[in-house]
């Protein structure tokens, strides 16, 4: 049966609510008896807390709660339990929460914060991960080996190495010996802010009677957050209820407890009154989470014909003060430093290093964006030296259908080559450059990448059909803005055979909707989509069985389309609503559970002990950029970006294209403009006036291209798109700058000052 909704650019279900301003975000919520919470943050990068005196703060009229870390002495962390809700005896970065107050008004809280007296004993601090690795560096987490670890994350006791991993395949030494040319380069990928429109915000309410918490939050993984709180507080998961809100942009930044943990800590002391915590933009920029900065050293051996003999990669990740999702970023994200290429001999060392800075966490790409910067910049360095065309060298080495991944997994649905061809074609690769005008020079660049999705992982959903035939899809896939609700409704409508408008997709509530790993790693369409296929198929079969009984015919002759039951050769027999009226004469609802786990897929098979590196699907993307560089100012104007993405199958092409367009803008913004200006651990540009994001004036023509290779195990052949999408943008732009003016910038961002300096040095 041809799907009626899947594959079509259906307008998003949340569109009207959002464009009218009626959509409710955590910031907008106001509950009866609600108090406002505010946070006192550390002014020092590293210090012992000797005393926190809250007595004067408690006297401020309207203030109901004033606490410090000693009042709520729990630790949390989804990967490593290394982080206090509020600093207990030590602060490790400027902006770390030290005390919290809640009161009747925001102004009362602000006043109370000024009355808290904290005595610190300053400790030596370390800001550069290379310094933090040095012998005798000040330690952030002495005794870190005693922290609870939820995963194979190896620390190095007595150092600042939060976690480390290595991988080797073949024999790199032999590979280097066989090489005609060896390339050694160091690249730097900088920290950037997620910069969502909606700052971090959450509400929490504690019930003293049942010792339970309710949290209203836009987090991308409500069930995992509930588990993290449960692990931290030592209470069962069912006493922690997460009610999801619309998320005004997450990009990974809302994938850990941020505002939630602070609201929960205060709620414990407010006698049942809910507490709302809303970050200021300053706190969002300086004390939420960032992308990990990374120093990436690549040594690559090449044959003169442009094939690889070996690559050695050494990556140092700048962790900031606490683990957050860093251990997995450093472990899984590092692997794509080998690109979508056939490289016979590999060696990788990845170290994640604590520093006295804002916490780094998950950021769109989960490490892929950083290592792609290095891999793809070096690819052009290699191509130039070998006298090859940048497109040609990529086409020569890119993975093909049924190639083995570096762990031995057979790769299927490999659209690498097609994305290279389509993106390069759309940008006009190989055509003569338009004539330069005055001081301006034009150039083109290309970059490609691949990314796995978190594997294995699980998604569950519930589909409820009410007695009138209307359908409710209960899932914990939060609408983070990418159109999750819409595509899941499209899949449900086509799977069951009901009209799209008969389906509602409420926000997740962990007390009702079953477990989902989270809206992360571009996994929702594939995993939750498959769970919806599972539940929807069960619903459909049940309905057709009932129809068989009611209509006294063979179910095999029946079909359910758009809420109507049709019989082969006869036509419409009965509507779903009329059928259910007969079944549920005294009321009722049809309820089915859907489940998908990638764990059992045979496609994950790999070399012994290496299956953990397999991915249930692989995403491929190529961006090609055309830029114009002003050689007098160093300013880069991006003229055009063609972005080809292998999405498997576009459930909703418009939403896929929007993901690509948004990612290109994000990638361009952090390649050219975004940067933290730091001094002694302090972020100086803590406003959007000085932390520059791309504006409409910076956005080039964007050509999104969907490549649909199809995936045998994906719903309707779909894979994912959102996470990988920003990764090739920065190297494509940098490579285009090199093509235009012959300067190679190895450290992001690509600022006019750096380009101008390089141009002058070249002369």
């Amino acid at each position, binding site marked *: 049966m041809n799907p009626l909704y899947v594959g079509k650019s259906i307008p998003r279900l949340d569109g009207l609510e959002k464009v009218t301003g009626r959509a409710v975000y955590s910031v907008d919520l106001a509950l009866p008896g609600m108090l406002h919470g505010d946070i006192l943050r550390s002014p020092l990068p590293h210090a012992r807390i000797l005393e926190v005196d809250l007595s004067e703060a408690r006297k401020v009229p309207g203030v109901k709660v004033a606490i410090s870390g000693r009042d709520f002495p729990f630790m949390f962390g989804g990967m490593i339990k290394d982080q206090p809700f509020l600093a207990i005896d030590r602060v490790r970065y400027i902006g770390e929460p030290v005390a919290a107050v809640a009161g009747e008004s*925001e102004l009362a809280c602000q006043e109370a914060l000024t009355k808290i007296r904290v005595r610190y004993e300053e400790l030596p601090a370390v800001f550069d991960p290379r310094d933090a690795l040095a012998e005798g560096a000040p330690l952030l987490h002495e005794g870190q080996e005693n922290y609870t670890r939820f995963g194979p994350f190896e620390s190095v006791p007595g150092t600042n190495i939060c976690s480390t991993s290595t991988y080797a395949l073949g024999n790199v030494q032999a590979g280097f010996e066989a090489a005609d040319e060896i390339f050694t380069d160091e690249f730097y990928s900088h920290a950037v802010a997620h910069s969502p429109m909606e700052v971090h915000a959450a509400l929490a309410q504690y019930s003293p009677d049942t010792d339970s918490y309710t949290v209203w939050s836009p987090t991308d993984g409500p069930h995992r957050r509930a588990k993290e709180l449960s692990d931290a507080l030592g209470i069962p998961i069912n006493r922690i209820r997460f009610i999801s809100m619309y998320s005004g942009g997450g990009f990974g930044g809302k994938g850990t407890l941020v505002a939630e943990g602070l609201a929960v800590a205060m709620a414990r002391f407010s006698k049942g009154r809910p507490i709302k915590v809303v970050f200021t933009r300053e706190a969002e920029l300086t004390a939420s989470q960032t992308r990990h900065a990374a120093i990436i050293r690549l040594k690559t051996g090449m044959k003169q014909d442009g094939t690889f003999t070996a690559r050695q990669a050494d990556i140092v990740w700048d962790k900031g003060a606490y683990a957050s999702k860093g251990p997995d970023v450093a472990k899984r994200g590092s692997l794509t430093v080998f690109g979508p290429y056939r490289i016979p001999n590999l060696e990788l060392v990845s170290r994640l290093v604590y520093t006295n800075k804002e916490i780094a966490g998950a950021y769109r790409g989960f490490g892929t964006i950083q290592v792609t910067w290095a891999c793809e910049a070096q690819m052009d360095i290699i191509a130039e030296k070998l006298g090859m065309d940048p497109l040609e060298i990529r086409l020569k080495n890119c993975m093909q259908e049924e190639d083995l991944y570096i762990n031995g997994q057979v790769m299927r649905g490999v659209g690498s080559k097609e994305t290279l061809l389509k993106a390069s074609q759309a940008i006009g690769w190989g055509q003569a450059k338009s004539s330069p005008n005055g001081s301006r020079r034009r150039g083109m660049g290309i970059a490609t990448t691949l990314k796995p999705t978190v594997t294995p992982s699980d998604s569950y959903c519930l589909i409820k059909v009410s007695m009138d035939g209307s359908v409710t899809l209960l899932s914990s896939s939060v609408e983070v803005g990418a159109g999750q609700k819409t595509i899941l409704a499209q899949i449900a409508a086509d799977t069951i055979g009901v009209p799209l408008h008969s389906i509602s997709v409420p926000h997740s509530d962990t007390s009702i909707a079953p477990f989902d790993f989270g809206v992360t790693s571009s996994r929702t369409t594939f995993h939750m989509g498959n769970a919806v296929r599972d539940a929807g198929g069960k619903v459909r079969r049940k309905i057709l069985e009932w129809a068989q009984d009611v209509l006294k015919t063979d179910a095999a002759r029946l079909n359910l389309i758009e809420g109507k039951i049709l019989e082969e050769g006869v036509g419409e027999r009965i509507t779903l609503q009329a059928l259910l009226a007969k079944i549920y004469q005294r009321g009722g609802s049809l309820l089915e559970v859907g489940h998908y786990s990638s764990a059992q897929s045979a496609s994950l098979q790999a070399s012994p002990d290496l299956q953990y590196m397999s991915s249930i699907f692989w995403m491929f993307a190529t961006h090609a950029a055309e830029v114009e560089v002003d050689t007098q*100012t160093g300013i880069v104007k991006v003229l055009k970006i063609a972005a080809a993405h292998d999405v498997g199958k576009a459930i909703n092409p418009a939403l896929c294209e929007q993901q690509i367009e948004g990612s290109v803008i994000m990638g361009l913004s952090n390649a050219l403009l975004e940067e933290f200006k730091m001094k002694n651990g302090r972020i100086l540009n803590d406003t959007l006036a000085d932390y520059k994001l791309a504006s409409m004036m910076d956005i080039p023509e964007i050509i999104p291209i969907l490549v649909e290779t199809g995936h045998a195990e994906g719903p309707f052949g779909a894979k994912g798109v959102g996470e990988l999408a920003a990764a090739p943008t920065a190297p494509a732009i940098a490579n285009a700058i090199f093509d235009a003016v012959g300067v190679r910038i190895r450290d992001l961002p690509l600022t*006019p000052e750096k380009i101008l300096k390089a141009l002058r040095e070249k002369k």
Partner: protein
Amino acid sequence: MKRLTPFSYFEPATLAEAVEILSGSKEKAYLLAGGTDLLIRMKRGEIAPPALVNLKRISGLSSIEREGQSGIRIGALTTIAEIEHSSALRASHTLMAEAATALGSPSIRNLATLGGNIGRASPASDMAPSLIVLKARLNISGPRGNKQVGLESFFTGPGTTILQPGELITSVFLPDPAARSGAAYLKLGRGGGMDCALGCVAIFLTLGNTDTEVKEVLVAVGACSAIPMRANKTEALILSGSLTDGHIQEAAMAVAAETSPITDLRASESYRRQMVQVLFSRALKLSWSRARSSKDTH
């Protein structure tokens, strides 16, 4: 969300009332017009004004009117967007529209006022360099009556002016430019829009009898010294010869030497110095070409 700490608040209905409040206030009163800068600094706790005097209830301070044959008067409460879209200004002082378009975003321009922009005395003001080269004079009211001062002598440092307690800017007068003149405003920010200038240059130039002879030139530079400054030495150098590529390059070196940029979040001192040369050369060439194609008389 950050809340403002309490302050006294006044809404005078007339200019006289405003002057009276400002002169009589024991606390330091800040003037509120568009609020695009003031309220942000208050929220960030950079300033905590004990009193705010909202000027927006005073009528007659937001018009753009011709003043006989001599020039045009812009009320202090005129928004930057009104300046950007004024057909009267586009006809006689196109440079004002050019500068207005460079300021902030459309939403900021809808609120921000000319008087506020001048009174804030930001070294990086988008309006000040153009106003200086257009020989703007400020009409100021105060407890001792009205007076007029040239904008060039108005600024005393970053955020400070010659305004005495009780005084406020009521309007800006721009004399009509001479025939065979052209002007340009060029600004460099980070990214394509909505940035505070890291360097900006305004030039007004009147040609003499030939297309390469400069009769008069005014150069003002922003974001490269403590105040929006007039580059007198550079002007003298330009006047000392006829306009050639070599002479323009020489003048560009002079303007870089005349400014005193600093390193801050937005740019380094050396980048600013290089950019001021580039902006200057481009602005000079642009105003020159505009002067050549301008009508002989206004």
